[in-house]
C-alpha cells in the first residue's frame, strides 16, 4: 500500500509540483491528466505486486479511463503514471520486504514469545520508507518478569481484559474491539473519510495517503 500511494503521489506531484517528491519527479506538461496519472500509477503497482489480480485491475483501470475525456492529457497521464510506478517499484525492489522468514523463536519457561504466526519479520532489516533506519524508534525490551512493572501490567490486563470483567467500561470494550481489527481494511477507512470530509484536492489526497503509509 505504501508503494501504491507513493506512486500515486509522485505521479500527481509531477504534474502539480507543490511538495517534495518521495522518489520521482518527472518532467510533464501542466495539462497532463492527474486523474489518469494517479489511476495508471495505482494500477501499474497492483498489477506488478499482485499478478493474479492483473485482469481485474486492468479492467478497473480501463473502465475508469473511459470516464475521462479522450485526448493528449489522458494519454500523457497514463504514460506518466506507468513511468512513475515503474521507478517506485524499482526503488523498492531490493528493500528486503520479501525476505524469507528468518524469525526463529527461542524461549525458556517464563519468557514470552509471540504465539501467532509471525508477522513483519522483514521490518527489522527492511529499508524503511520514511525512517532513517529500521531501529530508529525501536521499542525497549519488555520489563523483567520479576519487576513490579510486569506484575502491575499483568494484573491490569487480567482485571480489565478478562471476558467478563466488571472493571472494564463500555468504552474500553469498544476500544478493544476497534483494535482487534488491523491492517488496511480497518485503517484505510480513516484517511478515506478525512480526505472526503475535507474535500481535499487530488494532490493533497495523494499526499495524505502517502504520508500515512510511510510511517515506517
Amino acid at each position: 500500500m505504501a508503494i501504491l500511494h507513493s506512486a500515486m503521489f509522485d505521479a500527481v506531484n509531477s504534474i502539480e509540483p507543490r511538495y517534495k517528491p518521495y522518489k520521482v519527479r518527472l518532467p510533464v506538461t501542466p495539462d497532463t491528466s492527474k486523474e489518469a496519472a494517479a489511476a495508471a500509477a495505482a494500477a501499474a503497482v497492483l498489477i506488478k505486486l499482485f499478478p493474479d489480480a492483473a485482469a481485474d485491475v486492468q479492467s478497473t483501470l480501463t473502465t475508469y479511463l473511459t470516464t475521462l475525456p479522450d485526448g493528449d492529457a489522458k494519454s500523457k497521464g497514463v504514460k506518466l503514471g506507468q513511468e512513475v510506478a515503474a521507478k517506485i517499484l524499482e526503488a523498492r525492489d531490493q528493500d528486503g520486504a520479501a525476505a524469507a522468514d528468518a524469525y526463529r523463536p527461542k524461549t525458556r519457561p517464563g519468557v514470552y514469545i509471540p504465539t501467532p504466526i509471525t508477522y513483519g519479520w522483514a521490518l527489522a532489516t527492511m529499508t524503511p520508507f520514511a525512517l532513517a533506519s529500521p531501529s530508529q524508534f525501536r521499542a525497549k525490551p519488555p520489563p523483567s518478569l520479576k519487576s513490579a512493572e510486569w506484575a502491575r501490567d499483568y494484573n491490569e490486563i487480567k482485571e480489565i481484559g478478562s471476558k467478563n470483567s466488571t472493571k472494564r467500561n463500555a468504552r474500553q470494550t469498544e476500544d478493544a474491539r476497534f483494535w482487534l481489527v488491523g491492517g488496511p481494511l480497518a485503517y484505510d477507512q480513516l484517511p478515506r473519510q478525512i480526505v472526503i470530509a475535507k474535500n481535499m484536492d487530488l494532490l493533497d489526497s495523494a499526499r495524505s495517503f502517502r504520508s500515512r503509509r510511510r510511517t515506517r
Partner: protein
Amino acid sequence: MLLKGEWILLTLLLTAPMSSAAANVVTDWDTKAVGIVQAGTAPPPPLAGCGKSRDFEKMAMERARYRNEGHIRSMAYGRAPGDEWQRNDDQSTFSAAC
C-alpha cells in the same frame, strides 16, 4: 412576501451546484487496493491436514508484506519445544492438524 432580489437569491441557492465532498481517484484506488490485499490475506479455510497448512504458510510468507495481521488467527507453535525451533522453511508451524 419575498422581494424580487430575494427570489433571485433563493433560486440561485437552490439551483447552484452542490459542492458536496466526494471520493476521488485516490480514495477509489485505495479501496480497490485494500480489496486486493485483503483477498490475498484472507484467513485460511479449515485445515484438512499438514499439507494444507504448509501451503497456506508458504502463501503467507510470500505475501507477508501485505499481510493483515489482525485477521490471521494464531495456530501457535504447539509442537515446538524450547530451543528446538530451528524448523526448516518448508515445515509448517501450525499445530492444528499436524
